[in-house]
């Protein structure tokens, strides 16, 4: 139960970080990592509680995906910085509706 609370709190922290963050794209990437970690914590606690390995297998898959995703995200951010000279989250607002 406490693991469930922990993962929920981490998930909410990640979400709030994405929504409220105005300064930095890297913080946004980190918050996405937090959300993924919250899901891995939930999967691990679930797999221990239900005594099955499937949760741990998924966790490893998620970690891999998260690593790949943060690598690509960092690459995009560094390219963006090279083009614009800033990584503020308010900066990419040219595509309005």
């Amino acid at each position, binding site marked *: 139960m406490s693991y469930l609370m922990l993962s929920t709190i981490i998930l909410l922290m990640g*979400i709030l970080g*994405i*929504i*409220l*963050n*105005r300064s930095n*794209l890297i913080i*946004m990437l980190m918050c996405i990592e937090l959300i993924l970690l919250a899901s891995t914590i939930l999967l691990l606690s679930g797999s221990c509680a239900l005594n099955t390995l499937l949760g741990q297998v998924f966790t490893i898959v998620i970690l891999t995906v998260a690593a790949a995703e943060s690598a690509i995200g960092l690459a995009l951010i560094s390219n963006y910085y090279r083009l614009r000279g800033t990584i503020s*989250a*308010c900066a*990419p*607002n*040219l*595509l*309005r*509706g």
Partner: protein
Amino acid sequence: MPLLIIFIPLLSAAGSGLGGRYLGGRGSGLLSCTWLSIASILSLGLCYEILLNGSVVYLNLGRWIESDLLSSSFGLHFDVVTAVMLIVITTISGLVHIYSTSYMKEDPHLPRFMSYLSLFTFFMLVLVTSNNYVQLFIGWEGVGLCSYLLINFWFTRIQANKAAIKAMLVNRVGDIGLILAIILIWKEFGVFDYCSLFSSLDSCHSSHSSLSWICILLTIGAIGKSAQLGLHTWLPDAMEGPTPVSALIHAATMVTAGVFLLVRSAPLFDYSPTATILVGLVGSLTAFFAATVGLVQSDIKKVIAYSTCSQLGYMIMACGLANPEGGLYHLLTHAFFKALLFLGAGSIIHALLDEQDLRKMGGLVRNLPLTYILMLIGSLSLAGFPYLSGFYSKDLILELTYNNYCLISIYWLASITAFLTAFYSLRLVYLSFISGPNRLPKVEPAEDNWELLGPLLVLAVGGILVGYIAQGAVFAPGPRPLPFVPTTVALMPVILSLAGILLVFAPWLVPLEPRIHGFLARAWEFTPITNYYVGGPLWKFGHFVSYRVVDRGILEALGPTGIVLFILGRTKELSSLQSGLLFNYALTVLMGTAITIFLFWQ
């Protein structure tokens, strides 16, 4: 032969209208004159059969509208009334055609003019020969259309355009009356053709009030077409067309259609005394009104136009005295002397190089002696001088007004009108021919060629003799016993006419007060009053209600434009949600997810 009479003018119209550019002015004039002459000779033959031999021709040409209860067919019906109208239309029209070839010689659009004239004749013949009301309506609208085309013949003049539109619109008011009458006839009787309708009248006493309404609506139709009081305003303006057109419209065709309608519908009017009295009142008031206005007009054509209006009032009045034959008789004589007057006025105008103002004429008797004689014959005939054709018919109508079944006011109005008619018609002759010359010494006027004067001579012979010749005919109740009137009443029209004629030659005994003169010269202020009380409010209604409230208001707000504007505004608001900021998108996604989960997780 009956079909030929009707379709020869149509062929002539098509020939000079479509082939005018190949024929040229001279050729198309020759073509249409020849064909119209053939038509008038044929119609004289037909009239010999009908009027003298008494054989009514009835032709069924074919079915036209065959609906469940509504059935109408094309058919021709030549009886006495039609025969008289045929003489009038084809003779006058043929003479006007011949006259036009000379009068309009220099006009580059002569083929078009001849085509319109022939088309006018065709539609008028359709009107008088039809055997039902629906086919009559074809001719009724057709002559309205042709009057529009002819008044607007010189279409580069703004006055001509305005006059033509006015003629069309004011006629439309009467046409609505006629349409409603036809619809009511169909509702009450279920038939359109005259024979069935008039024979079913006896068995139809139940619908007495609706019969009155039919007659009143027919009267409205006649008021519009015959320029009676109320809807007369188009007639003086119709003088904007060429002079032969005025002769055709005012003498033979257009305006006589209203009288013809009343004469044709006379059996209906026998069942409705209310409508009959109404017709008599309208006719007598029109006669009086137009005669007073004619007293002071300074335009030579306007004087004759108002005299037409006045004489039509006499004819309508005769129909309102339950004596349509008298009206028809006056129509016949009037056609001849009025065409004579108009064409004579055209001759004067032609000689004076398009000068129409009576005040700038005078002393023409030395230059235009033949025209003077012809105009004098026409004017005396119009004035009812004894033993000219106007005398016979007008005297008859005036005696008819003096009987117990009619309002006595009709008699007084008609008598005063007879006096005024004599005065203004001789005033025209006096001012243009006899008084001292007032014109600028531009050019010495001279008589034109015989193409112009020949038709005038024929019409003058008609203006002298037609009244006497037709006196014994079936439709002109000469030999029949007239209503008994006292000798003074019987002599009164002649005395009044002679007094009116003599008054002209007295040095102006009656200098009218300027205010009365202005009132009469502006035609009783009819046009301003109509413009102020009818035209203006309708115009404002059209602008404010129809245009602003309905068109630009309701229909545009609820219609396409309003919907487009509404959707555009909403989509602008919706698309401004997409702000371009990443965290707002993330918020939207998460909120959307949360809402979806909240909604579907139960």
